[in-house]
């Protein structure tokens, strides 16, 4: 592993992967190494790790093909489970939202509505293409501001290791539910902001009703579960 990461800086150590910043052929890159989990049976572990790597590559490609920004793929080592991706210069939507709260505590995130709407639109396009992200959080979206001041910039979607392909409204609804939970727990008081995102999803999705109905269903189930404790 060391030679991939000579002069590379570790930027994130998640539950399943280490992420480094490095350089590849003069371009800034992200090096994502999935490691094995000791508590899993070795055979199962190896299969799962490889599956996540493959799912990640497939979904990055499928998303870009329908016009969703994703990092370009520069190299993969399917033996060591290492992926080299284009480094996106920007900040996670998580940081964007947190910064806004610090900077303008009175404004209730209104400044972020344009960016948040574009996320709703992107998720609609993604689901219309039957791509389920599987781990939608504000850390898995990178906001890249635009050089032109009148444009809102781009949202890059990342971290597709848990993604899958499905046309089922239930799977899309759960995808949104996961995001809602992550959103509201990382950004307290952001209910209105999340509603703006959902509205944009509805406005842009080809067939939002079955998905939103499922979302409501899953919310109910979630609530019952917490009530039972």
């Amino acid at each position: 592993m060391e030679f991939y990461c000579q002069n590379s800086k570790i930027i994130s150590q998640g539950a399943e992967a280490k992420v480094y910043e490095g350089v590849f052929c003069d371009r800034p890159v992200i090096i994502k190494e999935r490691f094995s989990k000791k508590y899993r049976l070795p055979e199962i572990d190896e299969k799962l790790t490889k599956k996540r790597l493959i799912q990640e590559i497939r979904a990055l490609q499928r998303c870009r093909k329908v016009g969703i920004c994703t990092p370009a793929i520069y190299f993969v080592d399917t033996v060591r489970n290492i992926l080299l991706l284009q480094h996106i210069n920007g900040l996670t939507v998580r940081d964007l939202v947190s910064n806004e709260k610090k900077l303008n505590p009175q404004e209730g995130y209104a400044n972020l509505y344009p960016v948040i709407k574009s996320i709703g639109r992107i998720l609609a396009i993604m689901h219309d293409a039957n791509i389920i992200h599987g781990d939608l959080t504000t850390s898995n979206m990178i906001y890249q501001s635009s050089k032109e001041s009148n444009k809102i910039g781009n949202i890059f979607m990342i971290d597709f290791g848990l993604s899958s392909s499905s046309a089922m409204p239930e799977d899309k609804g759960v995808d949104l539910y996961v995001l809602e939970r992550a959103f509201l727990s990382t950004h307290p008081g952001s209910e209105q902001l999340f509603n703006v995102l959902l509205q944009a999803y509805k406005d842009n999705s080809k067939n939002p009703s079955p998905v939103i109905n499922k979302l409501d269903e899953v919310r109910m189930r979630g609530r019952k579960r917490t009530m039972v404790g």
Partner: protein
Amino acid sequence: MDSFSLGPLLPDVEIAIGLYNNVSNCKDLKEKISEGNLCIALVKAEMIVDTFQLLVAASKAFYHEVEKQLKTRTVFTEILYNLSPSNKISECFKLFGVNDTAENIIVVCRKNDSSSVRSEVQGNLVSLSLLDKICDKELVKKLYKITESEVSVSPLVDCVVSQMIAKEVK
């Protein structure tokens, strides 16, 4: 020819890349390659969007040489194989190799061999930046199945290299 290092994957490998036009001896060069007397990759220049596309293919080829995972005979045929969006080995030579009468070609070799390689090619060595004019971008898009939505969010070269790498998990 311009030289490039393939670090951090391969800190010790340096390669040279040259773009030639008005080449008159492709047939001869190809014979020398198949006899094992010339260690180079000859690439159809029309299929290359940007030098980076070659660097991605070469990095993977030299890496797989070290890892003993080459799918073709040499690290230089492997460069052609890696450029191809298809996993069929025979197809990559048709798509990315040069025919006997080709005039626009790209030569990739080890940096140490570059001066001897230069004396073999009869043609004009020109700047790699001319690829932008020589490349048949419509053909490239078709071959790699790149959509208009895709090029609207990402530079063509990034779409191409991503597709080259993604073929490994097809």
